[in-house]
């Protein structure tokens, strides 16, 4: 399906929501209202919104610990996301999972993985399952650039290709794995090349341009749904923050962050919409203000919920 004007305004809305949601997360951390660690996707919003937005409700989705944006793009309420980061019953997993495990089976968001590898194999399993059960659902699985060096990444691509599975694999290449720049751990720049080892089409996509991301994802999804097999999409993007909360990201080259910010995904789409007269700069400012109010309200609503007792969590260990 091709994007309409209203779709694109909605993308802008969602990208801003993700950006402001994560600003709030950072703030809540500083206040000690969220503990532990978190992995922000600021700068990568176009990937979450463009790719996830191309899925149908009946499709499956697996993401990673850097998954706030994907979960929100999939329609999870900010309250459910905030609640999970706060460890409260208002969370999508009732506070048991935390920031790295935003999961919502009601939206076919079947897993968020804190350990690298299985996001691809489990997503593939859902795709094969959909096919065996006679549905036309497809699955989309996410991982990062560094994750393409672990064996399971290749194991999943190989199985998907040999079984012609209805799955779309997305690599979010933000140029770093924790503190290591891509080329210190990986011998090539275009990770889409890795599809060649598995006779699978690989596509390099401008991850800052939500239109490009959505178009590439839609094409891969259509291919999967048509039974033509899997596709590997490499999204060229960049994370503005450090790897996790405790990382000041001092290891980055002078000016690199600033260069990337000139192609900020929200600014890029905002400028287009303004130029096309679809949404003026003024309207965008107002939109941002409304979203900020929603973010603040959602955080407060989430914070009002209680914490589970250990006893209550026992029900989650084994099936009823």
């Amino acid at each position, binding site marked *: 399906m091709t994007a309409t004007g209203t779709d694109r305004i909605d993308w802008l809305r969602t990208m801003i929501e993700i950006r402001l949601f994560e600003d709030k997360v950072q703030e809540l951390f500083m206040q000690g209202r969220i503990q532990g660690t978190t992995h922000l996707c600021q700068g990568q919003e176009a990937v979450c919104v463009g790719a996830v937005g191309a899925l149908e409700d009946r499709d*499956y989705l*697996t993401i990673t610990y850097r998954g706030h944006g994907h979960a929100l793009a999939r329609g999870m309420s900010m309250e459910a996301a905030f609640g999970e980061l706060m460890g409260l019953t208002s*969370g*999508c*997993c*009732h*506070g*048991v*999972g935390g920031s790295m*495990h935003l*999961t*919502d*089976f009601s939206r076919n968001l*079947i*897993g968020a993985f804190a*350990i690298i*590898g*299985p996001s*691809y*194999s*489990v*997503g*593939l*399993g*859902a*795709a*094969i*399952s*959909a096919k*065996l*059960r006679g549905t036309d659902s497809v*699955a989309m699985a996410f991982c990062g650039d560094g994750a393409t060096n672990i*064996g*399971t990444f290749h*194991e*999943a691509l*190989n*199985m998907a290709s*040999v079984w012609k599975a209805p799955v779309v694999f997305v690599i979010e290449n933000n140029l770093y794995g924790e503190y290591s720049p891509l080329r210190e751990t990986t011998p090539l720049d275009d990770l889409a090349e890795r599809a060649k080892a598995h006779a699978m089409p690989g596509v390099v996509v401008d991850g800052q341009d939500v239109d490009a991301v959505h178009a590439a994802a839609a094409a891969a999804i259509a291919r999967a749904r048509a039974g033509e097999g899997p596709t590997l999409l490499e999204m060229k993007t960049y994370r503005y923050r450090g790897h996790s909360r405790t990382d000041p990201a001092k290891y980055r080259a002078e000016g690199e962050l600033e260069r990337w910010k000139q192609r900020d995904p929200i600014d890029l789409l905002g400028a287009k919409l303004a130029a096309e007269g679809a949404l003026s700069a003024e309207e965008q400012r107002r939109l941002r203000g409304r979203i900020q109010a929603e973010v603040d309200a959602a955080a407060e609503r989430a914070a009002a919920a209680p914490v589970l007792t250990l006893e209550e*969590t026992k*029900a*989650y*260990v*084994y*099936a*009823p």
Partner: protein
Amino acid sequence: MSTHLEAERPEAAAVVTELTYREAIRAALEHELEEDPAVLLMGEDVATAGGVFKTNEGLPEKFGRERIRNTPICENGFIGVALGMAVTGLRPVVEIMFSDFLPTAADAIVNELPKFRFMSGGQCVVPVTVRSIGGATGRFGTQHSATGESWYIGLPGLKVATAGTPASAYGVLRAAIRDDDPVLFYEHKGLYGRKGPVQLGHDGILPVGRAGILRPGSDVTVLATLLMADRAVSAAEALAEDGISAEVVELRWLRPLDYDTVTESVARTGRLLVVEEQVHAGGWGATVISELSMRGVPMERPSALSMPDDLLVSYSPALEDAILPGVDDIAARIRSLVEA
């Protein structure tokens, strides 16, 4: 959310037949595949030539290559695939050719299968059964002879089962596949040719988490699994002639572990011997002895016949035979406990 269909297709009246352990495994697979269209079997070469241990003869012909699926060599990857299938409505049975290869998939086994439901806050169930074939006696050498039965007993969220007789092979495997939690099910390659009575049909399905008394006795409780359960029965039979009455309990489920049956038996006999095809450290044997000691179950000093803590299995046939607890070793140990 089990998707079984007993209601619609009632099974033929239960019958007891003499089957080999291999035939019992095959029957369990066939009956679950028949009853529930959500069940499927996947693994390396499971659909070719009956599978490496010939447990799957005829299944691909009967259920098709989609449900009996050969996988590439990538254990961690295809257990991940099974997980994705399980949380979206299927009930995959995964065959790991040798239990020694379970560590190849340990990330999926330790970090995903047991924790997936929990981390989601109970949003899903994970009905994955992982069959693996372990144990020595095959002259397969150091990397193909582990039972591995205790490697994953300390993981809440997972269930761990074993089969030491044809009846257990059928009844425990069916129970494992029907269970909505992830289950590791261990078979022993030294038992496939062993014959025994098997109750086919639903009446032959054995309860999850329950041990079984293979041979009642009054002087000592011998706790064992897999090949050691088989050897313990032979030892007990031999000792019966000398008037020594050993009760052989097959543990079957290592998680959950049936302390009721074990405690009742030990309280009755006053003596406990665990026989293990593994070292004692970190195993179910140490776990049981520790629990009973902490609970103060009245018994003589407990005993374990296990594999040496400072040795590994060799290829050399003579060495492989020497390192395993044999029927005579078990009998001798029982005798020394009873006559002490």
